[in-house]
């Protein structure tokens, strides 16, 4: 291309103040290949753009250099204008006279000369530009949501209501997540089951949503719009279609003494069980680890009792591969266990429990049907001590961050205890009260003022047991650090919120980056909080950082909006600034030697193997090929490749070499 137009902008005073734009436009006339060079006060204005478009048409330009501000500002603007004028948008480059010249130098001949030099660099680059076209990638308009908690359910519902198919994958036998274990929720104290169950049912019955409970994601291939996800449907050991959920098997199952995970070990359950009464789907699962049949081969009571003989003892796990367009991670969090605290007895005191166990005690569907009974002897605790920041904000425990939700649910726990045991005394040891949400602080004030919960600002250094009482040794920093000793019947630790088990393993399966605590890494904390750096994979809720329910639901709708946006068009168009491995006619095929050293350099796993076959079907050579859907155009592979077989469109070796040659 050698009919290049140069358009120098004054940018008001930003460039014009120190650079003589008229002289620059004049000097650019004799750059080899430039046939048209003008200047204008505001190139990015409408008249400016129209002037450029007319010049392109009139002088039949095939390359444009706009000498103005930073490409990050107006490259899209000028490329769109150039595209509308009939040349390929990527034949338009910007020379940054503002940040690279006028802003950093005083007025003078040298500054004007430098401006002309910068333009000459970009003119040489444009000569080596190739017309590029946005990359079209087909989109499978089915989303997958991993994690069936409140976040996952919200994402699934929003996408499904957006008219797209959704597959909701949940690891445990029922959706609901941690929220289904809660009694009431702050700050409104409305019952968690009452607000969650309708959503669970809505999700179960939504025509666009397919529930895959008791299933885990095994493998993810492909790229944005074209994922191939392999899900392992763990065997429930019963035929879901025949089972009516009547619950007879659960009643008759003789093996009743299994520690119930749903009730955080406070209650027990049978070998064939449903996690909680409102479980969706309300179909039981056989716990093969503890079921007598699987241990000794005898029993089979459930098989005998089942009216629709739905029990299938020999049922195997099933691997299902699905075509998925976008994935939303909503795998939630886990609470640090009480055994992580040597100072509090390593969890051997039964009456030192964590927040979730208290929720189960307080919950009507809990092991104590909501009556306050302490786990050791079932007596109603007269004095309960709540300790905030147990494990959080504590570098020694490896959790330097604040878990965000404990201040609020500790205040809630104290209120619930006082509502249930009016005569009881509740103490809360805290460092700072983090109650920054809507009506949050008012809620905590209510706990202190109306329910007379005694807030003590200080840490608890030690707890030991003495004749049936838990001796809580703390200090009150507001009273000059005076030691405080409380004889408590029960202690509730507001333990740290951590990333869910095996979250790192899941992140590696999806090629999503994660931080040192196992939380998934968002693409940009402020600007792209619900996306990841891997195109087509989004985030919602506590899997990304400690989150309360309102934020989780808000993020869930955000992520859903991203997915619905992605699915809104037939094809996905992406910037063509991607790397390409060269190809040539036979017998050379490419200068790539197939060493695949570049594969290590690609953070997006965009480099695949392509086998070149002879007509006889025999593989002649295996070459690298870059998937335009996944490549983000960083160019690391280009610089890693020894034989220069890969080139980055928009920043190709020839372009950069040409620029270097004019320095």
């Amino acid at each position, binding site marked *: 291309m050698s009919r290049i137009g140069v358009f120098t902008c004054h940018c008001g005073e930003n460039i014009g103040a120190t650079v003589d734009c008229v002289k620059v436009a004049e000097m650019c006339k004799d750059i080899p290949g430039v046939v048209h060079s003008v200047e204008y006060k505001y190139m990015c204005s409408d008249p400016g753009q129209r002037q450029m478009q007319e010049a392109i048409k009139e002088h039949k330009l095939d390359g444009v250099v706009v000498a103005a501000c930073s490409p990050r500002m107006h490259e899209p603007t000028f490329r769109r204008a150039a595209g509308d004028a009939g040349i390929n948008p990527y034949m338009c480059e910007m020379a940054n006279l503002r940040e690279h010249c006028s802003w950093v130098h005083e007025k003078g001949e040298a500054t004007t000369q430098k401006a002309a030099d910068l333009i000459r660099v970009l003119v040489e680059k444009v000569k080596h530009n190739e017309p590029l076209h946005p990359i079209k990638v087909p989109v499978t308009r089915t989303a997958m949501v991993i994690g069936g908690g409140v976040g996952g359910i919200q994402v699934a519902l929003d996408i499904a209501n957006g008219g797209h198919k959704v597959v909701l994958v949940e690891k445990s036998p029922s959706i609901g997540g941690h929220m289904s274990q809660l009694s009431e929720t702050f700050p409104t104290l409305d019952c968690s089951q009452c607000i969650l169950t309708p959503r669970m049912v809505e999700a179960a019955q939504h025509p666009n949503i397919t529930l895959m409970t008791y299933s885990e994601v095994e493998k993810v291939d492909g790229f944005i719009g074209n994922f191939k996800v392999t899900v392992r449907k763990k065997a429930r050991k019963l035929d879901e279609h025949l089972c009516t959920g009547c619950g007879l098997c659960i009643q008759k199952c003789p093996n009743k003494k299994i520690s119930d995970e749903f009730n955080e070990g406070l209650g027990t359950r049978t070998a064939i069980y449903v996690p909680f009464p409102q479980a969706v789907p309300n179909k039981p699962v056989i716990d093969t680890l503890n079921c007598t049949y699987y241990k000794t081969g005898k029993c089979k009571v459930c098989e005998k009792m089942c009216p629709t003989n739905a029990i299938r003892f020999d049922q195997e796990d099933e691997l299902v591969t699905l075509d998925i367009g976008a994935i939303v991670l909503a795998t939630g969090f886990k609470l640090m266990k009480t055994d992580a605290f040597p100072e509090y007895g390593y969890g051997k005191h039964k009456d030192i429990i964590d927040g979730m166990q208290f929720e189960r005690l307080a919950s009507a569907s809990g092991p104590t049907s909501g009556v306050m009974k302490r786990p050791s002897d079932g007596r109603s605790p007269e004095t309960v001590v709540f300790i905030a920041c147990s494990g959080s904000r504590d570098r020694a425990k490896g959790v330097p961050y604040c878990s965000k939700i404990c201040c609020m649910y500790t205040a809630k726990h104290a209120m619930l205890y006082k509502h249930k045991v009016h005569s009881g005394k509740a103490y809360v040891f805290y460092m700072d009260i983090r109650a920054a949400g809507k009506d949050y602080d008012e809620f905590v004030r209510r706990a202190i003022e109306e329910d007379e919960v005694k807030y003590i600002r200080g840490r608890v250094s030690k707890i030991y047991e003495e004749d049936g009482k838990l001796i809580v040794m703390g200090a009150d920093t507001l009273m000059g650090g005076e030691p405080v000793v409380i004889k408590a019947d029960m202690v509730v630790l507001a333990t740290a919120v951590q990333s869910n088990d095996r979250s790192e393993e899941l992140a590696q399966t999806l090629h999503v980056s994660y931080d040192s605590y196992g939380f998934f890494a968002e693409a940009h904390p402020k600007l792209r909080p619900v996306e990841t750096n891997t195109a087509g994979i989004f985030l919602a809720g506590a899997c990304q950082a400690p989150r309360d329910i309102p934020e989780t639901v808000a993020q869930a709708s955000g992520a859903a909006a991203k997915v619905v946006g992605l699915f809104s068009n037939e094809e996905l168009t992406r910037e063509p600034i991607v790397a390409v491995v060269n190809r040539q006619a036979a017998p050379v095929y490419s200068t790539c030697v197939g060493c695949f050293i570049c594969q290590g350099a690609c953070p*997006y796993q965009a480099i695949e193997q392509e086998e070149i076959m002879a007509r006889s079907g025999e593989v002649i050579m295996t070459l690298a090929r870059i998937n335009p859907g996944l490549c983000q155009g*960083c160019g*690391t592979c280009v*610089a890693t490749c020894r034989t220069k077989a890969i080139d980055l469109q928009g*920043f190709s*070796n020839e372009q950069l070499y040409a620029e270097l040659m004019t*320095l």
Partner: protein
Amino acid sequence: MRVLRVPCTGRIDYMMVLKALHKGADGVIVSGCHPNDCHYTSGNYHARRRWMVFKKMMEVMGVDMRRITFSWVSAAEGARWAQLVNEVTDQVRALGPYTEFRQVIGAGIE
């Protein structure tokens, strides 16, 4: 000081530094985002390894490495970039033209 724009430090090939010196540059600044906040996740990690090996090789071959500056500067650190550029340009001006290298260009041709 002239600028060569690339999307990421991962894209920077040591050949570009050699070509800059070949074209008569007396000093080169190689810069990009800090490790761990690379927009492309790991571009600068790779660049760092490359620079470590490249720097040692250039030292072994006797190139005056005081003229080549490697530095992490993120898009947000405008002031720090300005300060770095001023510092380096002064330092290179103090070192004067890189005559040792210039003599090689054009040498060996009868």
